[in-house]
């Protein structure tokens, strides 16, 4: 009863009446979600364009000359940082988290709507500060997205003026924004679920977002600590991370600091960050697969445990990013072990996705295509992770294109495919209109095949020993001329994939105006967000009464039922009483 009392208590929902309170200073989680998503996608496109600029340099070193070496480093750095933090983290948690948590849990809004609104505006501020670094003298930082000291703030690295300071300040602001949002997501899941919505009746999308948020809340402080200390090293001249060093023949005032300390802090945040992006993707993909295969998710409880286990383990694997830092081999052994252990729950999830598809009534609609595409790219990216998790294999492959190929498969392409799956899946609910199926399918196939032709060859380049972070290779003995041909091919593929994304934007914008009106529940799904009285849902989400949940979210193709799905709000049917034997439920 506690849940009812809280969810239905006289919550002070603000009543937006003007355009400004409805769409700009809005406290409605759905509007905030869209604001978050649009901002994140906007910076994501900026980062995509940056990648094309440096890809043109790599593919055709002497042809275009669009970027000089400094700009090359700056664009690579900004590309990485924007994609990982300002696009993926913000989109999955600020975007989908905001939209889905209250709707899927049966709440009217987040528990702290005002703080939720602040979260978006502070996030926007962090984006503005980040982009401002393009316009300061010296430009943005070119330290690489890991910002390792001492080079990040030493002469010779581009952007050590305003660039690196703005970067660190922007990260600190982002962390504040994320904390405000994160407190909301966690508390809403814990406190505002509707009557009957137990934790183990939550869709896996909510589980993924919930655990990812906990990871973020515990891991982002490490980045904050590192950012504060590095800012002081840069601005005031403290020596937290800066060792004694000569720069251009001149002895600097620094002394005694430890660059490795920064690496520990950075990766103590950085590795959980991978799962902050991956867990929501895991959750969302589970739901999309189940809906479009008309089958209950295989091993729901196992899936929940796997999410939690992966979340917990992700805090004890960070030093596998530091095998080449000269650490004690015993540490390497420890971290290699934990890294390989984390593959167990992860593989378990992959098996469960595949077993969900097994003998399902699969509808290959656009969201489903993207979800299945994700299984492919994630398996490929995950398998190369097993290579890199072993110290002895990692040492020769470290800093080669093998690593670039690996992490782009596993946390570039895979989450982005899930983002597309999610957008296509919930587009009818968010906008009330259907997208164009043919355009969506074209978008999927060209994106999947295109990204494969970008990243698979990179593994080969890496095994050849082609190092990353080089502006141009010139004549290098161990790099054959054919590697350059491959590089050109990769760039062409990258240009095509980028161009193909126009299909997506055209589809979304065109469908917003001209798309046919969507059915409130076009995929015939069971979860609460499809059962709102209005499509798109109005402020407050539900009518006068909150929904009441009577069953888990995966009652698809239940034998003996007339329909192939039973909404979560449907009371138990006569004859099928609680405690039915589930042996018949494949």
């Amino acid at each position: 009863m506690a849940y009812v009392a809280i969810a239905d208590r006289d919550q002070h929902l603000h009543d937006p009446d003007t355009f400004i309170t409805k769409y700009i200073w809005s406290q409605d989680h759905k509007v905030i979600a869209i604001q978050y998503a649009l901002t994140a996608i906007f910076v994501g496109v900026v980062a995509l364009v940056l990648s094309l600029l440096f890809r043109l340099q790599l593919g055709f070193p002497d042809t275009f000359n669009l970027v000089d070496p400094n700009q090359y480093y700056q664009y690579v750095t900004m590309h990485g940082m924007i994609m990982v933090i300002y696009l993926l983290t913000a989109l999955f948690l600020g975007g989908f988290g905001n939209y889905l948590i209250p709707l899927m849990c049966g709440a009217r809004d987040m528990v702290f709507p005002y703080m939720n609104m602040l979260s978006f505006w502070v996030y926007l501020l962090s984006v503005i500060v980040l982009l401002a670094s393009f316009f300061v003298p010296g430009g943005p930082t070119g330290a690489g997205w890991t910002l390792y000291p001492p080079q990040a703030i030493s002469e010779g690295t581009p952007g050590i003026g305003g660039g690196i300071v703005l970067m660190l300040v922007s990260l600190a602001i982002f962390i504040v924004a994320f904390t405000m949002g994160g407190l909301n997501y966690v508390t809403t899941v814990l406190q505002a679920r509707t009557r009957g919505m137990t934790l183990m009746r939550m869709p896996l999308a909510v589980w993924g977002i919930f655990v990812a948020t906990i990871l973020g809340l515990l891991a982002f402080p490490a980045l904050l600590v590192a950012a504060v200390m590095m800012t002081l090293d840069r601005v005031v001249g403290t020596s937290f991370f800066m060792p004694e060093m000569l720069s251009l023949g001149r002895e600097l005032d620094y002394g005694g600091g430890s660059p490795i300390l920064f690496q520990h802090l950075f990766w103590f945040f950085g590795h959980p960050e991978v799962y902050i992006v991956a867990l929501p993707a895991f959750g969302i993909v589970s739901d999309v697969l189940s809906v479009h295969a008309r089958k209950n998710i295989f091993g729901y409880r196992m899936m929940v445990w796997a999410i939690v286990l992966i979340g917990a383990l992700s805090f004890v694997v960070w030093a596998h990013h530091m095998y080449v830092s000269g650490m004690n081999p015993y540490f390497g052994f420890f971290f290699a072990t934990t890294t390989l252990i984390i593959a167990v729950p992860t593989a378990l999830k992959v098996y469960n996705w595949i077993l969900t598809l097994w003998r399902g009534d699969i509808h290959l609609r656009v969201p489903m295509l993207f979800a299945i595409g994700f299984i492919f790219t994630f398996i490929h990216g995950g398998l190369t992770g097993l290579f890199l998790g072993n110290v002895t294999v990692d040492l020769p492959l470290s800093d080669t294109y093998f690593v670039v190929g690996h992490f782009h498969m596993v946390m570039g392409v895979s989450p982005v495919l899930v983002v597309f799956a999610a957008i296509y899946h919930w587009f009818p609910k968010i906008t009330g209109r259907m997208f164009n199926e043919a355009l969506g399918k074209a978008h999927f196939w060209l994106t999947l095949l295109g990204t494969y032709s970008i990243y698979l060859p990179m593994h080969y380049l890496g095994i050849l020993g082609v190092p990353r972070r080089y502006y141009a290779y010139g004549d290098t003995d161990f790099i054959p001329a054919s590697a350059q041909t491959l590089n050109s091919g990769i760039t062409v593929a990258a240009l095509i994939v980028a161009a193909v994304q126009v299909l997506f934007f055209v589809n979304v914008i065109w469908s917003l105006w001209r798309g046919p009106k969507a059915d409130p529940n076009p995929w015939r799904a069971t979860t609460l967000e499809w059962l709102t009285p209005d499509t798109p849902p109005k402020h407050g989400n539900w009518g006068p009464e909150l929904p009441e949940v009577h069953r888990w979210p995966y009652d698809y193709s239940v034998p003996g039922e007339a329909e192939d799905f039973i909404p979560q709000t449907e009371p138990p049917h006569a004859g099928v009483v609680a405690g039915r034997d589930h042996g018949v439920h494949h």
Partner: protein
Amino acid sequence: MNISVLFAALGGAILVWLFLLQRLKTKPWVEQGVIEEGGAVNAAPERVGLWVFLAVVTSLFGLFAIVYNMRSQFPDWRPLPDPGLLWANTAVLILASVALQRARGAVAREDLEGLKPNLTAAGVLTLAFLGGQLLVWRQLIASGYYLATNPADAFFYILTALHGLHLAGGLWFWARAAGAVWKGLESRPVTEVARVRLSVTLCSVYWHYLLLVWLILFGLLLST
């Protein structure tokens, strides 16, 4: 390093605990009908939100403590003198916590006479603590210990500043509660009185927590 692993284990333990708490051995695919969940987390959202926030702050200060510990092992570490004023400040902060605890007791007994002076005292004592910390900074600067002199000094300034900022944030919530109390609660609707009660209770939790953080930080500073 070992401490970091411990810390991570703690984070994991919290997750697992959350889990066990909710009896995850249920079989959601079997059970139908409305299930009433036991009162594992049926507190006010604000209370849960505060505890989640405390977990975040623990992560922040915990990481700082670990980094402090690691950095202080390096040979260039020159510990700064322990200003005597810090003892006085610590006493003031303890008193602030005591005052809030008494305010909390008063508000639970609906004793508005006892609430007002205690709540006011808590705010004044907290402001005195913050002023005292600034005074310590001035003393240190006057004796030549600047932010960039040595990492030991830098840590001292960062940690005290961070702790002070958290207290200042708490003062904002304190001010809202105190404002309502000063205006007089007698004629107010019941819901508002309940809000003030919650607010005072949560302030006391937050103050006790920040007192604990301060005692640990102070111990850390004294030990090096």
